[in-house]
């Protein structure tokens, strides 16, 4: 039963990838059949941990948080790995997810992405198919929009927007906002329908190098609707302010 639904999710992801690849057939590289390995298509990659932080809750628990992504590939086609999660004070992992995505450049600034997401926490663990759009919106806003279909067929979505405001050449203020949505409630994961939660943060980092930039920041998180009701019933907080310190890594 479970295996079957995993397969379904995986298959839908594969189909999505296939559709992406099929579209611009003329984009296929012209073969330089008689020529040596001299194509000038450069393959490269990067790893970015935008958040690697510990936060002190003003009226809630302290939490550790990470949010990272990595990619490898050419100019148009790339593979992405994304992960994010939170730990509670005792070090227990509250939520942890990992995504493996195929990504294709579809506009000057935009990648269409599709693949799978696996939530190790919270229990029960769960697979999702992912389709997403990531890129740079006018005004230099970094945007990541994702839609998910779980192995049970539940639909949900996530939107993240952030902006790097350079105060000086190395001091950067980064406001960001993230929201999660669900089309239906998923009681076993304590997820209600509608907007589940919203989080806004403001991080001030100092770029000693582009690679290593420590930061301090503040964030506000709030669960909404049925999701908040689930939390209250469990005796958890539904939101609050957090001061945090962390380090941004970019390699």
């Amino acid at each position, binding site marked *: 039963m479970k295996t079957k639904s995993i397969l379904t999710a995986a298959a839908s992801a594969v189909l999505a990838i296939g559709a992406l690849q099929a579209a611009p057939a003329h984009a296929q590289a012209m073969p330089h059949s008689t020529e040596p390995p001299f194509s000038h298509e450069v393959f*490269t990659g990067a790893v970015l941990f935008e958040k690697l932080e510990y936060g002190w809750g003003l009226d809630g628990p302290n939490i550790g948080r990470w949010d990272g992504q990595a990619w490898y590939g050419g100019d148009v086609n790339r593979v992405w790995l994304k992960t994010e999660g939170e730990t509670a004070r005792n070090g227990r992992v509250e939520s942890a997810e990992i995504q493996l995505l195929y990504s294709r450049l579809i*506009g000057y600034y935009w990648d269409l992405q599709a693949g799978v997401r696996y939530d190790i926490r919270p229990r029960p663990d769960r697979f999702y198919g992912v389709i997403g759009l990531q890129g740079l919106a006018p005004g230099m806003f970094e945007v990541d929009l994702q839609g998910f279909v779980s192995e049970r067929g539940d639909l949900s979505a996530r939107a993240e927007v952030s902006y790097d405001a350079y105060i000086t050449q190395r001091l950067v203020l980064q406001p960001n906002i993230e929201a999660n949505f669900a089309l239906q409630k998923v009681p076993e994961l304590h997820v209600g329908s509608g907007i589940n939660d919203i989080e806004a943060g403001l991080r001030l980092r100092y770029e000693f190098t582009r690679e290593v930039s420590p930061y301090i920041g503040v964030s506000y998180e709030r669960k909404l609707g049925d999701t908040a009701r689930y939390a209250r019933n469990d005796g958890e907080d539904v939101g609050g302010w957090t001061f945090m310190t962390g380090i941004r890594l970019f390699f």
Partner: protein
Amino acid sequence: MTNDKLSRRRALGLGVAALAFPAASGASAQPAVGRAMPREFNLTLSHVTANITGRRRPAMAINGQIPGPVLRFREGEEVVINVTNRLREHTSIHWHGLILPSSQDGVPGISDGFQGIDAGGTHQYRFPLVQAGTYWYHSHSGVQEQSGIYGSIVIDPATPEPFGYDRDYIVQLSDWTDETPSHVIANLKRDPGYYNYNKRTLASLVGELRRAPDGAARSAIVSDRVMWGDMRMDPTDIEDVGGYTYLVNGHTPAQNFTALFRPGETVRLRFINSGAMTHFDVRVPGLEMTVVQAHGNNVRPVTVDEFRIAPAETFDVLVRPRDGRQYQVLAESMGRQGFAQFSLATREGLPALPLPPHRPRPVLTMADMGMNYGPSGLDRGTPMPEVDAPGHVAPMDMGGMDHSAMQMPAGGSQGMQGQSMGGMNHGNMAGMGHSSMSGMNQPAMPGMDHSSMRGMAPSSMAGMNHGNMPGMNHGSTGAGAMGGMDHGAMAMPDPLVNDVGAPPGARVLSYRNLRAAKPLYPVREPTRIIEIRLTGNMERYFWSINGNSFSQAQPIQLHLGERARFRFVNETMMSHPMHLHGMWMIPQVGNGAENPLLHTVNIKPGSTLDVDIEADAPGGWAFHCHMLYHMETGMMRKVSVVSARQAASAR
């Protein structure tokens, strides 16, 4: 610098560092005999450890030195050059600017029958020298050029030059980074602003607003910021790569290479820009310079105070210091990140004169963008490859220009009428706004009535080619002398004027000042106009020609014996020194038969320029931007010159 372990062949002459050959001592010059055995030269490429900045870093050297040895040839002789590859990777050597058979040109996979030189292998080049002048050579494999695989070539003329001089120095400019070149590419790919520490910031905004005279100026500053933000472009991105140390003949600014002279002598300086990514603005405070050769070819002498030299260009200048004082030759990087410098002095070992403060750093304006407001609906580079057939990236026929019918990209050359209104930008034909009509070539539009062009505001006519406008000499007259010329609202960049930030009245070299002393080709109409749009994606850091990166592109096909006109339309915000192998490029700068013969033509951001090519060299030739990382990430094509019969059978 790395030449302490030199076991050079005598034939190679002295290392560049020590090279100072007075013309009189052309001692090795034997008369070129008709069927003499070719002279033989040996170059060995190897990994070395270089210490340029105080850190020991991996580098690559030719015969153990950076730059490699000077190759001193004689016009009319035939030479054999054995290149031994002791690197752990594939390599190649290309003879930049030399007119030779395709098979000897040294570009793996493009030159006829040449697949590069395997690790451990030796390749023998053999070619006759049909020209004289200052050239250079470098690796054409990957980014080895940045690691140190470059050197200079001097070809002594068979007949006396039309100018005299007492001393002769090579001035090979280059840019050195302690990073490995592959690391540089990776950095640019993951963050195109990686090296830019001169971004616009909130702090600089506050400063600008404080300095602004009135409210209108303040709102202009803010709206300019908003506009660049909406375009998702960075106007402070002048040089993609930073962290460079700028070298003269391998000498750092602190080492201060010295060229000796005696007062009253005429000194020839052979400037070669071997920088991977650097345009240099060159001046000698206190001295004027007379340009006598451009790209190896004699030009009618032109006296200037300053010149800009793009990557791969060479200019030979004469200076005449009358007194015995020390002069400092300054080559400031276009993005003002540093200087290369050396001294002209009467004795060795003097410390460098104090450097002046940097000239103001250029900031791009909307005019540099060709009034092209970014990729949102308009064409600023092309994210995805376009369909183009070999050699048929031709512009459209103005006569039949019906805006409503402009739906299809003109794939073939049919409908093209040589002179008529070429250069229109077809990149984003669907839903084409007039503001994207860059590249209109004014001189080629006889009798064109602008008023009849519906909706075409002057301000939208971006990138018009002023190259042919006679009598317009911005370069040598400096700013403020443009009286009587009404640009109206057309704030487009002049493709031939280099804004080096010189003081008013300074004479700055422009291609317009270059007049070939001995034109090689009679003037004739081009048989075809081939549109070469320079495109790319700054955000992902890849570059392309007509929207196609090299790995996706078809060759451009030229017919042997034709005169093709490349109509360059730079749709990016960077300068692109475009280099064609094997044939001269003749930019149409308005000097008629005396238009200069160049091997590399610098195309400024947002500008348009016509460049003619006499396709007289059969075979496969590389054609690319000489910004090393632009080439490496896609701004390159193969040009195939084939006989008309071959072209027909291929079709």
